[in-house]
């Protein structure tokens, strides 16, 4: 019981990170119908930006942890948003209206480029940091197995919920969110009605990249070690989460992220750690074959 509770806590924490990345996938897919393959690598870049900001702040002598974390988060999200904007501008916008595989191949190229750019510029070695917020609380003790809820996990869940709350407000209540939803429903019609679709798509990429950077920041805090390769696996898992929740659906992405996090953690705890990625990938294949619309998605009608 205690063991399962501990796994539940770990799974929810991990699921929050996946959910944040998945939102970026699902938003872009909802609007322009392409898989932004480089999104996982933007997450990785966000993680590296957080690392650099944390080191820079400690070198500047800022010792207050909340202030350092807030500044890091802002810096990482800001620069990652710039990355998202640039990627869309350079690699995807010129291809709008081209044949279907073109943006996908371009996105794969962008993903490879980002990965190797970070590998070349920052080195291929893993980057460990010390725990920023150590300690935690012990919830229960059963037969010598103590269930730990670390401050870090609490921070991750709280930050995610706050960010998602802000994001939901942005999408449902603001004029910007309204244009985004309009573009999601019908891009051509939205542009006929005077919405600057190019700008809306840019904004979507910016927001998605910023959310991915927040996820990268929390990944760095939670695991304490990153390398240039984390974006690939995390990206596929987050994409799985988006598909599982129903691609195009924002609550679905968060739900899918939570499910994937829980499945991965419970699978590692009760079956095998080696095959945890196989579990996630198999779910992706099974969902796509038997339930292509996911849990909360809408069926897509193919028109000729």
């Amino acid at each position: 019981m205690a063991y399962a509770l501990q796994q539940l806590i770990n799974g929810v924490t991990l699921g929050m990170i996946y959910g944040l990345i998945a939102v970026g996938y699902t938003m872009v897919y909802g609007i322009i119908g392409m898989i932004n393959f480089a999104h996982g690598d933007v997450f990785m870049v966000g993680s590296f930006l957080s690392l650099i900001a944390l080191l820079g702040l400690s070198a500047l002598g800022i010792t207050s942890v909340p202030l350092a974390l807030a500044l890091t988060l802002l810096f990482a999200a800001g620069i990652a948003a710039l990355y998202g904007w640039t990627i869309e501008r350079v690699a995807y916008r010129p291809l709008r209206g081209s044949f279907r595989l073109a943006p996908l191949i371009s996105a794969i190229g962008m993903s490879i480029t980002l990965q190797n750019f970070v590998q070349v510029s920052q080195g291929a070695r893993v980057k460990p940091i010390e725990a920023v917020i150590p300690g935690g609380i012990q919830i229960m003790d059963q037969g010598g197995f103590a269930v730990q809820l670390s401050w870090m996990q609490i921070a991750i869940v709280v930050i995610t919920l706050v960010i998602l709350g802000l994001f939901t407000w942005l999408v449902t209540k603001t004029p910007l969110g309204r244009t985004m939803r309009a573009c999601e429903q019908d891009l051509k019609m939205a542009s006929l009605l005077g919405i600057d679709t190019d700008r809306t798509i840019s904004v979507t990429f910016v927001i998605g990249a910023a959310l991915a950077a927040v996820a990268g920041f929390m990944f760095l805090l939670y695991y304490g070690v990153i390398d240039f390769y984390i974006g690939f696996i995390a990206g596929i898992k987050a994409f799985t989460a988006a598909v599982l929740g129903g691609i195009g659906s924002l609550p679905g992405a968060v739900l899918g992220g939570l499910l994937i996090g829980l499945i991965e953690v419970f699978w590692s705890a009760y079956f095998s750690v080696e095959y945890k990625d196989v579990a996630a990938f198999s779910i992706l294949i099974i969902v796509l074959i038997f339930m292509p619309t996911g849990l909360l998605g809408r069926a897509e009608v193919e028109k000729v």
Partner: protein
Amino acid sequence: MTALRDAFLSALVALGLFAPLVGLVTTSGDHGLTLTARPIATAVVVGLVFFGRLLTLSWRGRSRREATAANRAFAERITRAGKYITPVLLSAAIALPLTGSRYYIDLGTLVLTYIMLGWGLNIVVGLAGLLDLGYVAFYAVGAYSYALLATTFGLGFWVCLPLAGILAACWGVMLGFPVLRLRGDYLAIVTLAFGEIIRIVLNNWVSLTNGPNGISGIPRPTLFGLAFSMDGGPGTFGDFFNIEPQVIQRIIFLYYVILGLALLTNWVSLRLRRLPLGRAWEALREDEVACRSLGINVRNTKLTAFGIGALFGGFAGAFFATRQAFISPESFTFMESATVLAIVVLGGLGSQLGVALAAIVMIGGLEALRDFLSFLGDQMDSPVFAGIASELPQYRVLIFGLALVVMMVLRPRGLVSGRTPSVALTKVKEIAPDLVAEGRG
């Protein structure tokens, strides 16, 4: 003036992008990680972006019609030159071992392996238009099939080669079945997941595959039963022809084996393109819905594309295993799939000559550039060239990635291909990228 302003803005964005990641590098010190500043590197990168933007702006200043015409002319020139390039390339490939240099023959073998993989993947991606990101899985199946059959049952290379191909083809069809209904981009992700699953299983199924340690001692191929062993005993190549056994003989033999396999791949796909099956592939690439309404069996068409593509991947895998004599899951990462895909895309989806040229440029060209730079460094005693030469391999993949993006933006249909249908009723009409609004993948 606007161009200057635009370039300046680009440089500003580049400064924002690169100042944190290029300008500050994290290095492991005594007390954990420390930051080191690299202002010169940042300035160089930002400067490159500035001048690159200026150049592209002046390039784009030409009118659209002019640019399209130039593109056409370029494609036509390449197609016309293709008539001469093909025999020249082929004779160069046959004559390469005459140089006697082990280095060039090894490099040629590597390039030919990628050409073969590229031609195999070209059937799936270029002809049938199914974006397969897990092609390396079939390469791995071929390599492991041969390695396991040879080390467990003592079977020879020529017996195992067809078996490895058939096993890979079976996997191809097995993968093809569940993904039949998926559209282009979903298909890409599923094949990618499939490739990763194969690699993870190879890595963890230690009792069968020896896990990350890999399989070593894989036997070399024989020439009609004549082994290339160095001791020169009875029944070996050296003994039969009564010559001194040398390592170079085996290397030349391996070179001709892969040349033969690659040419076989080329021949088969050229023939297949003329069959109804090949035409169905090309039709499927252009429009799946139209295909179905015209009564083409989409299921069989897709499955044969997967199966035949995988078959050649399996052949190449078996060759890879016998050439290296050692394989481990590390050789079969997603990067390998991406490299082969980059070759196919750069070559122009569907063009045989383009794939060969792209492989030569991307695999051989960078290698040659590195040698040239290190040679320059030695000659001029300049550490700059030598430094660039030693760093160049790490930039290879970066260049691959950028090339994919640039290629898609500038010439989405590839350098050589004009997407000319293989078979046409009366007059061959080119389907240029500017005439096609949206195909379905």
